[in-house]
C-alpha cells in the first residue's frame, strides 16, 4: 500500500515538492546567515574582523570579544537590572492580567460590559506619549524602578487572550459547583482556576518577559541614572551610538587594533544579549505558538 502511494507521485508533483523544499531551504539560509555571521564574527580575531575576512566561520578563533564585553561594568549592571525588571515586571503583569481576566470571564457580572469596554477602548485611543510622560513626572516615578515596572502593567490584548482561555477551557459549572460547596471566589481563583490555567500562565509570562527583556524606549525616556539602565540601553549606547570607552580596551596603544576591537566587542555583545532568549526559545516555542493561536480566536 505504502509503496503504491510512493509510486503514484507524478512528475508534476515531484517537481512541485522539490521546488517547495528548495524555496524553504533558501528562506532558512536567508534567516540564519546573519545570525551565524554574527556568532562567527564574535569568536574571531579582531584583526580579521576589521579586515572583513569573516564570511561564514570564525577566522582566527579568539575569545577576546567576550573578555572585552565582560570587562565593561555597565554591561553587568545592565544585565542585573534587566533581570530584575523582567522578573518583577513579569510578575506584576501576569498577576494583574489574570485578576482582570478572571473578573471579566464571569458571565453575569453586573457592569461587565462597561469594564470590558473600558479595557478595549484603551487599545484604540489614548493620551499619547507626552501626557503619559507628564503623568509619570507628576507621580514622581521618573528615574525610578517603578517607571520600568508599572507602565504597561496590563496589555489589554494579553488580557483578552487570557479571558478567552478561561472562558473556553474552564467550564463555568466548575465555579458554580465550587460556590455551592461554599468555596469563596478567592479560594476558587487560587486553588482551582490558577492550577488549571498553567498553559495560559506560561504564555503570558513568556510574552511579557520577552517584552521586558527587549524593550528600550521606556527606559530611554524615563530613566536618567545609568545605575538603573537595562541591558538594551547599554546596548544602544555601544551598538548604535558608538559610545565605547577607549580606556576600557585592552592595549589602547595599538591603535590599528582598536577599530577591529570595537567591532568585535559589538558582535560579542549582540551574542551575550540575545543568547538567553535564544537558549530558552526552542523549549518554550510551543507556548508562544499557543498564545498566538488563542489570540487569533475572536476575543
Amino acid at each position, binding site marked *: 500500500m505504502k509503496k503504491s502511494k510512493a509510486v503514484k507521485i*507524478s512528475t*508534476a508533483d515531484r517537481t*512541485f515538492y522539490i521546488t517547495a523544499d528548495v*524555496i*524553504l531551504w533558501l*528562506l*532558512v539560509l536567508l*534567516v540564519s546567515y*546573519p545570525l551565524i*555571521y*554574527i556568532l562567527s564574527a564574535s569568536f574571531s580575531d579582531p584583526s580579521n574582523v*576589521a579586515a*572583513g575576512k569573516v*564570511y561564514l566561520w570564525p577566522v582566527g578563533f579568539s575569545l577576546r570579544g567576550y573578555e572585552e564585553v565582560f570587562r565593561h561594568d555597565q554591561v553587568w549592571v545592565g544585565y542585573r537590572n534587566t533581570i530584575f525588571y523582567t522578573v518583577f515586571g513579569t510578575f506584576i503583569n501576569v498577576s*494583574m492580567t489574570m485578576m*482582570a481576566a*478572571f*473578573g*471579566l470571564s464571569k458571565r453575569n*457580572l*453586573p457592569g461587565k460590559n462597561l*469594564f470590558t469596554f*473600558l*479595557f478595549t477602548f*484603551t487599545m*484604540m*485611543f*489614548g*493620551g*499619547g*506619549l*507626552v*501626557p503619559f*510622560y*507628564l*503623568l509619570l513626572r507628576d507621580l514622581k516615578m521618573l528615574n525610578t524602578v517603578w517607571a520600568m515596572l*508599572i*507602565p504597561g502593567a*496590563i496589555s489589554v490584548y494579553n*488580557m483578552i487572550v487570557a479571558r478567552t482561555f478561561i472562558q473556553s477551557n474552564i467550564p463555568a459549572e466548575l465555579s458554580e459547583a465550587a460556590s455551592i460547596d461554599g468555596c*469563596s*471566589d478567592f479560594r476558587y*481563583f487560587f486553588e482551582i482556576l490558577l492550577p488549571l490555567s498553567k498553559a495560559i500562565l506560561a504564555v503570558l509570562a513568556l510574552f511579557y518577559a*520577552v517584552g521586558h527583556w527587549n524593550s528600550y524606549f521606556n527606559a530611554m*525616556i524615563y530613566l536618567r541614572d545609568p545605575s538603573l539602565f537595562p541591558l538594551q540601553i547599554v*546596548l544602544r549606547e555601544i*551598538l*548604535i551610538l558608538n559610545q565605547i570607552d577607549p580606556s576600557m580596551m585592552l592595549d589602547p596603544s595599538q591603535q590599528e587594533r582598536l577599530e577591529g576591537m570595537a*567591532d568585535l566587542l*559589538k*558582535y560579542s*555583545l*549582540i551574542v551575550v544579549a*540575545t543568547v538567553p*532568549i*535564544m537558549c530558552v*526559545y526552542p523549549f518554550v*516555542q510551543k507556548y508562544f505558538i499557543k498564545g*498566538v493561536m488563542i489570540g*487569533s480566536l475572536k476575543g
Partner: protein
Amino acid sequence: MKQVAASASGARSVVKSKTTLGHRILRNWQIYIFLLLPLAYLLIFAYYPMTGLQLAFKKFDMKLGIWGSPWVGFDQFTKFFSSPYFKTIIPNTLKISIYSLIAGFPLPIIFALLLNTVRSTRFRKTVQTITYLPHFISVVVLVGMLNQLLNPVVGVYGSIGMKLLGTYPVDILGKADAFIHIYVWSGIWQNFGWGSIIYMAALTSVSSELHEAAEIDGASRFQRLLYIDFPSILPTATIMLIMNSGQIMSVGYEKVYLMQNTLNLSQSEVISTYVYKIGIGSSSIPDYSYGTAIGLFNSVINLVLLVLVNQVSRRLSETSLW
C-alpha cells in the same frame, strides 16, 4: 415544624425571585475586588492621561500646570499643518506603512502554504523553529546587526562589495533613499516566519478528506494548494489585511528612531518619532503642547481608520473587533 419549613422555603423563594441588581452585585463582591487593581491601573495610567490631551488646545505654562495653562484653541494644529515637517512626516509615515503592508503581507501566506506541503514533520519543525527565531531579537540588537552587517568597510556587505567591485560599496546606511528598503526588509526578515503561525493554524483545520477526494480526481499538489489550501486561509487573510490597513498611519517609534541618522532623516522622520522629539526628547525646551497636539492628530486619525476598517470588515466577513 412544618410551618417553619414552609416559611423557610417561602423566604428562600422570595430571595430567589429577588435576584435584583443589588443582590447580584453583592453576591459578586469578591470579583470586584479582583477587578479593583486592574481598573485602578486603567483609570490612572490610561484614562487620566487622556485629560492631558487638553494640552493640545493650550499653551503649556510650567508654573500653571496642565489644568491652569491658558487655552489657545486650534493654534497648535494650525502651526503643525503649516510647518514644513507636516509635508515630510505624513508622507514618510504613509510610505513606510504602505510599503511594509504590500511587501510584508503576502509573504507569510506564501510561506505558510509552502510549508504546509512539506511531508516530513522533522523538516517542517526545523524550518518553523529557525524562521520564528528572529522575532525574539530586540530592536536594538536588530538595528545593531544592520549597522554591523551593512557597514561598507568592515561589514559583510563591505567585504562582499570589495570582492565583487574591487572597491568599498556605497554606504547604504547613510543613503536616505535606502532607509525605507532596509527598514521594511529587515522587518520582513524578522517577522515573516512568526506572521505565518496564524495561517498555519488555519491550514491545520482543512479537512484531509477534501485533499484525498481531489487527489483521486487527479489534482496535483499545486492545484490542491491553489484550490483547497488557499481558499481555506482566505478569510483569515482578509481579516488580517483589513486590520493591518487600519494601522496605515501608525509607524512605531522604536525601530525607526534607532535607524535614524543625520543623513537619512529626510526619509526616516515619522509622526511618532517627531512627537517624541518635540514633546520629550528635544535638547532644548520640550514643547509639551505642540507634541501633544501632533500626537492627538495622529490618534484621532488612527481611531477613525480603525472604526472604518472595522465596519468594512463586519460587512465583508461578518467579523469585527467589537
